């Protein structure tokens, strides 16, 4: 493979060329109520070429390796169509390496029967709970081997595994339908889907309880976010704005996002770190062959860094951070997060709760999204807080905020950091990308909670 790629890369008139090739195998299992609705296996292979000529990119994806050199020529030609002003990519040391994950119990090698046994158990627990009308379970594991070579001499082979699952319980009474769920994932360790019987019971119980729970009255509240939802908040509220491809060609945004600008209190530290071991957003090299590294986005409340590809780093005069990622060979790498989290502070949950007269405690998540300035994220579970105590269960709520004010309104950061590995991230048509996010409990003043 190495010779094949090296040969295909030779003799083209381009500033830079890279070739990706990947092979993957996946298993997916879907339950809908008592029916195991889909169980499938998938195999896939293919690759792509990216060529840079005078500042513009050509991109060609392909199914077969044959005629690779001609495909490289096509990418070079495409880049030439768009060509304008040249620039140099941020210089990185060409890497030659092989990366193999070390897993204790690799989900992709577990027998189907074992996977089904665990999922059956969770499904039966949810289905046998009171008022549960139906359930959903979506399980997927994938093993991916990628090969990467560049005209600069990099040659990297990486193997990666990923596991994601979601359990949902749907409760019904008359015309009223409510649901509760749990998203989870891992870097391929099967243990992520083991031992969830208690969780399954909890989800079913919560879905049923929501049928008679009141809707919050919409308005501004003091809210406490649990570590899972606070992680989603970090990802949506600030992570996406830290992706330099949103910023690098927009002069006004560059001025807003100038390094050294204050975004929050001194207690606020937000980090993206693909080099943390064993998480879904962990890797050794990104999809441009740049070595993974830890980046402080916000340190002590001040904007300290942002996430870069080699192109955005070069154009902003900053350092490539190893955050160029693609979901698969059909897409070019773009700037993405990896493992993004708020570092722990020192306020206990009890103290945070203690001085709230009326507020909302929000836990777990359905999802989140951002327009860079404004973001929304939704809680899977919510409770009123009255006179410093957790009170009644509420229907799920959607929270919204404005990045330029909300981070300033974080007035307490807990001491209990947890990383959340559920879900996946979508951007530019590429979804879901394995990431993780995390945080300790945090408290936000004046947060808008939608309601009826």
């Amino acid at each position, binding site marked *: 493979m190495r010779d094949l790629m090296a040969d295909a890369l030779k003799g083209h008139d381009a500033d830079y060329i890279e070739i990706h090739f990947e092979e993957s195998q996946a298993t997916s299992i879907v339950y809908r109520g008592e029916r195991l609705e889909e169980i499938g296996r998938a195999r896939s292979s293919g690759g792509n070429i990216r060529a840079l000529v005078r500042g513009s990119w050509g991109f060609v994806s392909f199914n077969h390796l044959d005629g690779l050199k001609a495909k490289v020529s096509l990418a070079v030609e495409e880049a030439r169509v768009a060509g304008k002003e040249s620039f140099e990519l941020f210089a990185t040391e060409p890497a030659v390496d092989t990366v193999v994950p070390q897993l204790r119990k690799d989900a992709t090698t577990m027998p189907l029967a074992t996977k089904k046994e665990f999922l059956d158990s969770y499904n039966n627990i949810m289905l046998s709970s009171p008022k549960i009308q139906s359930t959903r379970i979506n399980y997927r594991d994938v093993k991916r081997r990628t090969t990467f070579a560049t005209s600069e001499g990099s040659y990297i082979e990486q193997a990666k595994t990923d596991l994601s699952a979601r359990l949902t319980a749907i409760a019904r009474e008359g015309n009223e339908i409510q649901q509760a769920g749990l998203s989870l994932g891992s870097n391929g360790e099967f243990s992520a889907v083991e031992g969830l019987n208690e969780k399954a019971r909890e989800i079913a119980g919560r879905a049923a309880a929501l049928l008679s729970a009141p809707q919050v009255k*919409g308005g501004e509240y003091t809210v406490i976010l649990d570590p899972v939802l606070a992680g989603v908040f970090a990802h949506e509220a600030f992570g996406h704005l830290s992706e330099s491809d949103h910023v690098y060609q927009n002069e006004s945004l560059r001025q807003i996002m100038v390094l050294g600008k204050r975004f929050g209190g001194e207690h606020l530290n937000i980090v993206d770190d693909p080099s943390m071991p064993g998480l879904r957003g962990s890797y050794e090299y990104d999809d441009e062959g740049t070595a993974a590294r830890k980046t402080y986005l916000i340190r002590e409340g001040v904007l300290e860094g942002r996430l870069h590809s080699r192109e955005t780093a070069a154009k902003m005069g900053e350092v490539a951070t190893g955050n160029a990622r693609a979901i698969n060979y*059909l897409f*070019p790498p773009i700037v993405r997060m990896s493992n993004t989290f708020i570092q722990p502070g020192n306020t206990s949950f009890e103290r945070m709760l203690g001085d709230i007269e009326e507020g909302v405690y929000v836990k777990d998540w359905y999802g989140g*999204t951002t327009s860079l300035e404004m973001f929304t994220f939704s809680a899977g579970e919510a409770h009123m807080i009255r006179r410093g105590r957790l009170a009644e269960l509420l229907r799920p709520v959607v929270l919204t905020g404005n990045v330029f004010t909300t981070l300033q309104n974080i007035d307490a950061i807990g001491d209990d950091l947890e990383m959340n590995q559920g879900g996946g991230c979508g951007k530019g048509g590429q979804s879901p990308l394995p990431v993780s996010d995390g945080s300790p409990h945090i408290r936000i003043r004046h947060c808008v909670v939608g309601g009826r």
Partner: protein
Amino acid sequence: MPDPKHNDAAAGDKRVETEMQNDKARLEEVLCSARKVAEQAEVFSASARATTVQFEANELKQVQSRESSSTALRIFREGKIGFAITSGGGDWEALVDMAVETSQFGSPANFQFPSSRDYSKVRIFDPKVEKIAMERIIEIGKELVAKVRGHTPDVLCDVQITKGTSSVSLINSQGGGGGYDKSFFSLSLEGILVRDTDILWVQDSESSCRSDLVGIPELTDRVVWQLEMARKKATVVTKLLPVIFTPHGVASALLGPLVLAFNGKAVFEGASPLKDKLEEQVFDKKLSLWDDATVAYGVGSYPFDDEGVSGQHLPLVANGVVTSFLYDLQTAALTGKKSTGNGRRAGGGFPSPAISSLVLKKGEVPFQAMVKDMKEGLIVEAVIGAEQGNILGGDFGGNVLLGYKVEDGEIVGRVKDTMIAGNVYQVLKELPGIGEETRWVGGTLQTPPLYCSGVSVTAKGN
């Protein structure tokens, strides 16, 4: 005139033809070996080629060529369903083994693969699309950017223009099968305007199987209108307000919960609020909605669905009365119905009920008259976070990404830091008005503006 690029395309065409023959032989071969181990079998293959020209921050940035293909095998073995798929240049010889492996755990095979081979023709292929020159595409991109910047010079535009073709082939052990080719052409334009820390997004898109049905001036007119309406800022206070959802707004906020509720699977398992509501008046009498796989040159159209069942015009709501749900073969068999030709495969995978194109019947109220009618209200073009609530229960809502305030019958400016929330079964029960101007949004929904009342609006600061 000799044109090297055109020659490339011609060479490409030839390759498509041989590949198609190879595909057909491969399908037959997979089916043949599957029949040795299974009672019934079905092989589905899809492939696509597309070229995308991308402008970033007003400038031409990247040209992409993509090819993708997949072959999926579904078998009934010892009365149970097995499934496997291979994509890209994946190993299709392993398909049968993988399908056999999964069939041990599969759900009971409760239906037959259809033996139909004759399908009515649906117009979805335009040979002109493939021939659009790269130069012309780049020109269109520049035109779009220039038009929008002509209105607001500071706006930064991202443009994506895609042309492509796809083909589908299906055969099964019951003698059924068919194949078709489809073309597509799409434009999408997104503008961002930053003033201090205020970010304004404007966005629209057009797509069709036929390039001349994609309206370039219509697209820029709508984006320019968004910029114009958002020029000034307006404020709202927290209360119940009437809301006009533009076609874009209908797609952004209301469509998700509705599509879920009409899915035959959700109805079967009782997770749809429309369970037991067939033939009942659930929505306003003015509201009619249908799914239509036969729309000429619609990007969602097809002669047969991904299981070999003919596509059709399927009324879902007639004058407010629920008339049908969407079914694939398996779900139809479970409920004693017939497939409605809505068995679709996302990414070539396992079939499941899904829409082809949805059409919401237009009404009689001009947009301007709706606006004039509002003393105080909102016009919503786009929300973010709409997918995050209890959409299974019909809830909709989110942060208004683009929306305008109406005071005394006039649009006074853009609202920000504002959330809307409601439930489609309450809001669509009585509609003050349905618009007379209708249009396609994103290629698969045709809708007029909807004038709704009593939507919860929550604003920052109160």
